[in-house]
């Protein structure tokens, strides 16, 4: 055995990698026997009683393969193991009631003081995606680590935003660290690690992303974060579970308001009613967490003098909210061909953006 991992670390990895070993059983084993090495060396009848049959079988099998196999798997995946109570283990995570005994980590260990979890629906809307992206980006620019779950939708937007802001982002997986789910985020996962972030998981190598893993995983997302921001979520969803954990763990909970009639607004609006902090922009979080002093003055959409008369009419018609093309025809009284051309020019100048369904809106920064 070379020097990369100590024998104790490998034994703890062996223990963490056991299929079906509950958090509580591992807690008892460690309390009773003191160290991973002792458990590994003395594996026998007492442990069968504590661990249960399934976990014991798995422990015996992987003991027979030898510690070299565990080491090999860690090296193959370029992963490390951080053990609770040692340096590199997230301080904030240590504080929760049931912190993982050890974590598999790819990238830099996730011991961040300023960290915000951004979670939300996998069936997101454009609004939610844009907000998650922008908030993550701005927070990242202020040196805040963005934590999320690498899922589709809001999670992906949050990771992307953090990367775009040049910051650090951490993805907590609901499956073994040797695979990426969903597969289309493989490339994103690689960029997260390359850009100084981390991918972490407490699940054994090769575990599939099973439905019951995610609620367990969610306690880590909120646990390693100083605050949790919920962007969009349906009434009964995993995002509500994460927010629940955050509150239980004594962390700040933020929610981003949405329109009251959208199904994706159910979770954040309920949290707001129950007393969560409101978040309308990254500044809200920075201020409330006392990470930043002054609120910057907001920029206003300027009505430029370089607009043609038609463009001025269009811009003022769009002042309050997005409008559909047919509505704009009625509001501006322009012919379809003129309106089409002017909208193209406004879009090219970055004043207006076109949205799905042939809607147009003023572009705000």
């Amino acid at each position, binding site marked *: 055995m070379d020097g990369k991992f100590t024998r104790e670390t490998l034994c703890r990895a062996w223990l963490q990698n056991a299929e079906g070993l509950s958090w509580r059983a591992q807690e008892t084993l460690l309390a009773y026997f003191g160290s991973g090495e002792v458990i590994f060396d003395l594996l026998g009848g007492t442990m069968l009683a504590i661990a249960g049959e399934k976990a014991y079988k798995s422990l015996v099998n992987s003991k027979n393969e030898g510690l070299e196999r565990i080491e090999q798997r860690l090296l193959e995946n370029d992963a490390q193991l951080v053990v609770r109570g040692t340096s590199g283990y997230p301080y904030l995570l240590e504080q929760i009631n049931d912190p993982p005994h050890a974590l598999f980590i790819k990238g830099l260990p996730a011991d961040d003081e300023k960290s915000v979890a951004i979670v939300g629906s996998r069936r997101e809307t454009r609004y939610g995606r844009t907000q998650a992206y922008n908030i993550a980006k701005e927070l990242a620019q202020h040196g805040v680590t963005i934590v999320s779950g690498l899922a589709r939708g809001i999670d992906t937007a949050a990771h992307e935003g953090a990367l775009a802001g040049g910051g650090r982002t951490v993805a907590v997986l609901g499956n073994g660290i040797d695979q990426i789910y969903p597969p289309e985020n493989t490339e994103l996962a690689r960029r997260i690690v390359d850009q100084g972030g981390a991918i972490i998981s407490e699940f054994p190598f090769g575990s599939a992303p099973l439905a019951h893993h995610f609620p367990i995983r969610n306690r880590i997302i909120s646990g390693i974060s100083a605050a949790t921001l919920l962007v969009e979520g349906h009434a009964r969803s995993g995002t509500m579970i994460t927010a629940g954990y955050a509150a239980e763990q004594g962390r700040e909970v933020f929610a981003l308001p949405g329109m009251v009639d*959208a199904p994706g607004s159910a979770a954040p609006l309920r949290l707001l009613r129950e007393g969560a902090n409101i978040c309308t922009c990254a500044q809200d979080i920075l201020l409330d967490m006392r990470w930043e002093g002054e609120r910057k003055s907001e920029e206003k959409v300027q009505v430029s003098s370089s607009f043609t008369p038609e463009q001025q009419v269009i811009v003022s018609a769009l002042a309050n909210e997005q409008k559909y093309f*047919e509505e704009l025809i009625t509001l501006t009284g322009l012919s379809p061909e003129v309106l089409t051309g002017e909208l193209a020019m406004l879009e090219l100048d970055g004043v207006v953006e076109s949205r799905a369904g042939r809607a147009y809106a003023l572009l705000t920064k």
Partner: protein
Amino acid sequence: MLARTKCFALQGIEGVPVTVEAFVSGGQFVFSMVGLPDAAVRESRERVFAALKNNGFTTPTGHVTVNLSPADLKKEGAAFDLPIAVAIAIATRQVKPMDTSGILLMGELALDGRLVPVRGALSMVIAAHEHGMREVILPAENAAEVQAVQGMLVYPAHTLYEAIMHLTGAAPLLAQEQKSYQEYRDQRQISYDLSSVRGQAGARRALEVAAAGGHNMLMVGVPGSGKTMLARCLPGILPQMTLEEAFETTRIHSVAGMLTPGSGLMTERPFRTPHHSASMPSLIGGGANAAPGEISLAHNGVLFLDELPEYSRVALEALRQPLEDGVCTITRVRAHTQYLSRCMLVASMNPCPCGYYGSAVRQCRCGSHEIKRYLDRVSGPLLDRIDLHIEVDAVPLEEITDSKKGEDSATVRQRVEKARALQLKRFEHAGITCNAQMNNKHIEELAMVSSQANAVLSKAMEKYQLSMRGYMRMIKVARTISDLRGEEEISAAAMAEAIQYRTLDAKYWSR
């Protein structure tokens, strides 16, 4: 004795002359047919014999040989029944020997001797005219189809008996009156008129641009926004078909057996809507006898693909080449056939699987990955061949119920025809007819982009990261818009409008 008659075989939409020879000699009864007849032709013996008998003739005795020459050309279909029956009647001396080499005979026989209409009558008559023949006897129900062919004496016959009596001179048939193309055009009726489309000013404008330049078009919109209705209006605002175009289209439909019996020349541009379960051969043509596909049936008209992402990928990819070339080549073991396929492609699709992404009235319940997977079923190369991309808004109910009627198709068509006239003049020596057909060289030499328009275009190139092909497509559409405006050079305003018709793929497909 030996007798000869003339008829034509079909190869694609072309007619190839075939001589039918019948030879009867003494001896025991033997019947043989040579010259690569297919099953339908070989079976004609049974129909011919029954028809002869039921029309007062006797069936031959002795050694009967029927030869279809040239011998190495595969003969298909039932159109040979009549020439075979006439040849046998002459060869058995029931009819006096005569020269029928200048007369085209065609028609399938029923057992009682009635003449049944055949596929491809128009193609055969046109080919016969090119080969110097000036007379034709055909089933009465095929007569209307060939009424517009000038310089041909058309004798519609109902039975084998009538045909033979005409040939012998015992009871001559009346030649059908010819009809000029003008008369056909005057009868033209538009089945779907734009005036019945309420609201949708933006989409109507895009439709007009598409028609004026012959551009392919993609409509994205929520269910019930009227995409299909808009597409159906397109043939009505396209310019009238020329005589040549009408002949081309009718021939393809005739060969495919798609003409309603008794209908004349097609003057309305075809509108084809193959279902999305359509296979590749049914779209581009094929099958054992290399039949024309939907894209050829839509020649000079519109091919409408509703719910574009639902079509099989293979079928869609196969459309690319015929769309580009205006002709599709079908190669089979024995047949190598080309069909014209110069049509406008109009496609429609929902923006997402549930259909309501971006809708003002209903919440979309698709995740972004589902939307992406749905959109990705339409490949980039196919999108690149579609010049105009537009979004169609759902029309609010109040617009449907109480808005003033929109312009009718005739008014829009006048503008389209004016723009097309400018294009015909521009491309006089270029060998193309409309802006959509321009290649890079034509664009370079003939498009006339003003410097202001060029500035707008380079800005758009940068913002939307357009490919070279996308760049050329924008110029083509801008050229059409300028033609509608009557501008010599493409103005900045025309270019800006054109850009809006190409930004959809940036919005939807690049996420």
